[in-house]
């Protein structure tokens, strides 16, 4: 054992204590294995070697094991064995024993026993007297047995005693030798490295000594190369070419065969008797059954020989095939023409052959050309084999394996069964009259409640009244020089004839007396005049409240010129009015001025000459407004939605979302439960108020924006829309009282006739109160009656 092992021992001495600490305290469970070991040790050794246990513990694991084995035997065999053992130790491991004795005092007892034994057998010195008379020990010559040589035993032994080496950490030495000299700390790797770095190594230096010359061994370039090749497992020979030129073993040179020109000997043509004999022998053996012509190999052997295989699918139960399963496509059986020797009629004639060869590969009808071979052995290799197999694989891979259900339904049958338009007569089909005479666009049109007159208003600022059937202009009045007449609507009462017209911010109420008899005129005038007093008395109440605030509308007389024409009342609101809608009783009318922020929607009371603004603030741009045909409900259309408000309860009832980008107009069905909405994005939407806030039907038949929509208010199941593409469309829209049944909507007729002027077509459409007739207002300056 070298000093390193001792050092190890010394270094490790401190650790057991710390280990124990850890084991006792924190890491009990983890370290259970080492504890057991120590317990075993303690159990086995406690009787005699309790003192030694601590030393043994300090040893490394390997030493421990050895010690364990030794110590196990010790108690069982008694003292003699120990002695024998010690004897062995002395001979084999004397140095270690000595080192142990020197290092550990507890070992002394045993050592003394050993010494006593030695004395028994004879001493290796003799005591004489020297010149001074003092006893002199003369030692015998040491027999130089192999084991006795301890020349390489370390001279210095650290004698610092049983203290941890860490005490010397701060010092350059690690202890003291027997002479009290400091044992210096051995050099470490770093120092060696530093030393090596400092030495300049010559080229080819190996650090070895040439045993022949005793000089340092240096290797030349070639030698290094050989070494390199050796490590790579290459041929180290000089001049070895790993890539020699190819030797043509089979040359094109013709050689004469056979080598001998001697004639064949006769025996080669005569049957061999010997062979015949052997054959007969075999034949006889076969006949007698001694030789089996074919002996099946024993199956057991084969099974043993074969690798064990496992059937993955052994337990699998066969599944029934999917009903839509398609088997892989089969190749058609080969025909006659694919035979190697086909009948002559299947062989192509030269023209066919040429045609086949000239044709593009994709255009060929057959991929092969029938060929005739005399014998099967003359059939050459099949050149298309790989390609054919590849294509077959592709076919299999791409072939559908599941039958897909193809819909074999006539698309016509999926369409809902709509009655034919012929059955839904009457509806307007032709233009019956043209109302001509306006300049510029006609923006609004209205038929009076009796169905006799048509009122129209347009860009020229005139409001005109026409005879319905003949198209005769009966009356007109110029309302405004600058503003167009955007809306005209007759008051829906038959006993009077009052026309509301809007031009700019002004709403005019007109009695066109020229077509009225005195009593009708008078009753109309009475209706209009009833409110004058009310407006005068009103301010007193309003001053109490918001005196400074401007009234939503100013009601006045329009002046003698217009009054002479029958225009009797003028109401001025804050911004331009685009839509007028009368309440069914004729006392209220609503106006919509899209640009007027808070005053966008106004409700006017005719009998009081009063204007109210029902909405303080309106979400979005107001487009149109209508009263419910029978209930106190008010509909307001903004750009994207239509809201209905209960006027009695003053609350929001419903918000309809037609999903349109920009609503242009809407109309309420006379039943009150359905709504049609026209949008600038070309759609006509039917809303069923009972169903949902989303449209029940969306009709998109126009090429351009829809400007106006109208329901027939006189009981006919008709509605119409007017579009910028210059056409009107008539629909059948039947609403049944039964809640279970939805409305039937049938497109009936496209009415064309209006011309498109500056991308505007038909501006307004209105139905006759009784008949299936409608009147449209066009941007081309005409109105048309359709019936």
């Amino acid at each position, binding site marked *: 054992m070298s000093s390193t092992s001792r050092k190890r021992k010394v270094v490790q001495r401190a650790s057991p204590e710390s280990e124990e600490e850890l084991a006792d305290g924190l890491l009990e469970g983890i370290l259970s294995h080492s504890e057991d070991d120590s317990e075993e040790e303690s159990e086995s050794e406690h009787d005699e070697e309790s003192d030694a246990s601590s030393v043994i513990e300090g040893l490394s694991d390997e030493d421990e094991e050895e010690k364990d084995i030794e110590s196990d035997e010790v108690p069982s065999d008694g003292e003699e064995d120990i002695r024998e053992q010690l004897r062995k130790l002395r001979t084999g491991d004397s140095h270690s024993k000595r080192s142990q004795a020197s290092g550990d005092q507890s070992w002394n007892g045993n050592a003394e026993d050993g010494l006593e034994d030695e004395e028994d057998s004879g001493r290796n010195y003799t005591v004489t007297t020297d010149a001074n008379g003092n006893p002199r020990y003369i030692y015998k010559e040491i027999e130089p047995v192999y084991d006795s040589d301890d020349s390489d035993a370390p001279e210095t032994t650290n004698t610092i005693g049983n203290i941890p080496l860490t005490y010397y950490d701060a010092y350059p030495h690690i202890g003291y030798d027997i002479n009290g000299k400091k044992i210096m700390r051995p050099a470490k790797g770093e120092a060696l490295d530093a030393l090596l770095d400092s030495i300049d190594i010559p080229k080819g230096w190996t650090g070895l000594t040439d045993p022949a010359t005793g000089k340092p061994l240096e290797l030349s370039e070639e030698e290094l190369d050989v070494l390199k090749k050796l490590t790579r497992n290459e041929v180290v020979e000089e001049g070895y070419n790993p890539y020699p030129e190819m030797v043509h073993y089979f040359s094109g040179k013709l050689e004469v065969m056979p080598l001998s020109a001697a004639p064949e000997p006769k025996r080669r043509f005569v049957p061999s008797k010997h062979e015949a004999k052997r054959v007969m022998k075999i034949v006889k053996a076969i006949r007698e059954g001694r030789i089996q012509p074919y002996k099946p190999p024993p199956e057991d052997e084969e099974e043993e020989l074969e690798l064990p295989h496992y059937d993955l699918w052994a337990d699998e139960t066969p599944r029934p095939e999917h009903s839509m399963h398609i088997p892989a496509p089969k190749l058609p059986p080969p025909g006659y023409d694919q035979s190697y020797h086909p009948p002559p009629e299947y062989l192509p004639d030269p023209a066919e052959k040429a045609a086949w060869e000239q044709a593009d590969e994709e255009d060929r009808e057959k991929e092969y050309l029938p060929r005739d071979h005399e014998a099967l052995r003359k059939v050459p290799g099949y050149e298309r084999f790989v390609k054919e197999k590849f294509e077959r694989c592709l076919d299999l891979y791409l072939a559908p394996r599941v039958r897909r259900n193809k819909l074999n339904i006539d698309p016509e049958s999926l369409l809902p069964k709509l009655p034919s338009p012929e059955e839904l007569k*009457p509806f307007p089909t*032709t*233009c*019956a*009259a*043209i109302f*001509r005479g306006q300049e510029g666009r006609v923006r609004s049109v209205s038929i009076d409640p*009796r*169905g*006799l007159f048509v009122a129209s208003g347009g860009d020229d600022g005139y409001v005109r009244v026409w005879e319905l*059937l*003949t*198209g*005769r202009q*009966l*009356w007109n009045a110029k309302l405004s020089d600058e503003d167009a007449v955007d809306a005209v609507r007759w008051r829906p009462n038959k006993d009077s004839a009052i026309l509301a017209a809007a031009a700019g911010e002004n709403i005019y109420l007109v009695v066109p*007396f*020229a*077509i*009225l*008899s*005195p*009593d*009708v*005129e*008078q009753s109309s*005038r009475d209706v209009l005049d009833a409110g004058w007093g009310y407006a005068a008395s009103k301010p007193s109440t309003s001053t109490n409240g918001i005196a400074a605030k401007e009234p939503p509308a100013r009601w006045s007389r329009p002046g003698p010129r217009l009054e002479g024409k029958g225009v009797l009342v003028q109401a001025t609101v804050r911004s331009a009015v685009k839509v007028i809608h009368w309440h069914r009783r004729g006392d209220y009318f609503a106006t919509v001025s899209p640009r007027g922020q808070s005053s966008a929607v106004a409700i006017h009371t005719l009998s009081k000459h009063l204007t109210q603004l029902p909405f303080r603030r309106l979400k979005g741009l107001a487009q149109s407004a209508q009263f419910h045909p029978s209930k106190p409900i008010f509909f307001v259309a903004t750009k994207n939605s239509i809201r209905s408000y209960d006027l009695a309860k003053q609350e929001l009832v419903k918000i309809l979302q037609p999903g349109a980008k920009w609503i242009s107009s809407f109309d309420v069905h006379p039943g009150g439960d359905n709504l049609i909405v026209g949008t600038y994005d070309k759609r006509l939407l039917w809303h069923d108020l009972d169903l949902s806030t989303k449209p029940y039907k969306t009709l998109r038949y126009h090429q351009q924006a829809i400007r106006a929509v109208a329901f027939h208010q006189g009981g006919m199941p008709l509605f119409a829309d007017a579009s910028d593409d210059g056409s009107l469309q008539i629909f059948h829209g039947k609403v049944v009282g039964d809640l279970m049944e939805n409305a039937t909507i049938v497109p009936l007729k496209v009415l064309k006739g209006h011309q498109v002027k500056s991308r505007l077509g038909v501006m307004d459409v209105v139905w006759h109160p*009784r*008949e299936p*007739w409608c009147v449209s207002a066009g941007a081309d300056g005409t109105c*048309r009656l359709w*019936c």
Partner: protein
Amino acid sequence: MDPSIADTAKVQIRLSTREDGLEVPDDSRLLFAPTSLRRVDLSRLVNNLLHNDTPIPFEFLVNGQFLRTSIDEFLTQNGISAETTLNVEYTRAFIPSLHVSTFEHDDWVSAVDILSTSSPAGHWTGNYPQENTRILSASYDGLLRVWDTAGNVLATSSAPHNGGRITSLKSAKWLSDKKIAAAGMDGVVRVYSYDDSTRTLGDATLELYNHNWQVDNIAVHGPSHRILAASADTTISLFSSRAKENPAAPESLLPRSTAASNKRQKLSKPAHSAPARGALATLRSHTAPVSAVLFAPNDPTVAYSASLDHSLKTWDLPTSSVVETRATSHALLSMAALPTLNLVATGTSARHISLIDPRASATHIAVMTLRGHANAVVSLDTHPRSEYGLVSGSHDGTVRVWDVRSVRTATEGQGQVGESVFVIEREGVEKMRSHGEGVKVFDVRWEEETGIVSAGEDKKVQINRH
């Protein structure tokens, strides 16, 4: 024509007619005719059989269809065997009328009427001289004009004044050779006196007030001095042309009744002398404007009225009650009676003419439908002699002549369908459009001597005669 073929192919025909005085002798009714014969040949044959010195042009109806081709082709077209006996009915041909003259007006002409020997007014007058045939026209400018057949305006009425109201006339009729009744948009029926010797018309001699909306049509019965006015206020009034018979006019309808109207009235015209009267009876039953009214041809106490409420009503005038109501499916705009057939022809807004049996016992309401017009049929009149002839004026700008004997069974709906015999278009108009803008025909009359007189939006009265 190959005579051999003409000889070989023959068909047996039986000649008959529904017109008096034109029957062929019994022995020659059944005869064999070559199938190559055409209408002209048959007409010549019938004239020969009748021994007419001046040949009368005949039309031949086979199974309700006019023969327009040879008999052979007709048989082939209709799939009739040549073995059968053909019932051939011959009628006096409606010879296509030619344009005779046009009377220019200042404004749209809404109504015309004729005073002649054979016209109703001439009948009532008795022995009205033929050379004094007068044509009355009523115009949208509110004026009545009396023309002679040469196209000269003999008299013009003065414009009525009614408190600034539009007085456009819608209907005008000769009551007798001296009296004219006219009504229009102001709802007033006015009676004018016309003196043919002095050729003066002047102011209205009587103003009849009962309507607060326009009067669309009037009917007159001369002998009983009765005037029926159909108005847009859904009522029909019965007036007498004699002022004294009528009660006082309702105050509220008079132009002076209201302040505003009175003011205008005074401004427009200071004095007004014509007596104002009310109605003898007001017939209320219609729910929509009444568009046409008619005295029953045989009984002046019975009247028919057609209305936009789709119904045709029969009235008993003495009791002012509805006798019968016939509902149709379209708005009715005009009416004419076919007394011998017990039918009333009505023009509808649905571009056709319905022949309606107004009798309570009738099982079919619409007996026959005459199709061909492209717009509302606003005027109807009967053939002056034949009870089967009919003339209609429509907003599509055409006048059509019909023979109700020419019928075929309708392919759709009930009843039978007829087609027009010929069409008269407005003179000087190249292309006719269905909406008839500018050429709408408002009124049409058919008189034996004068011919077909029609008035329209082109401000003209047009006379067509064969």
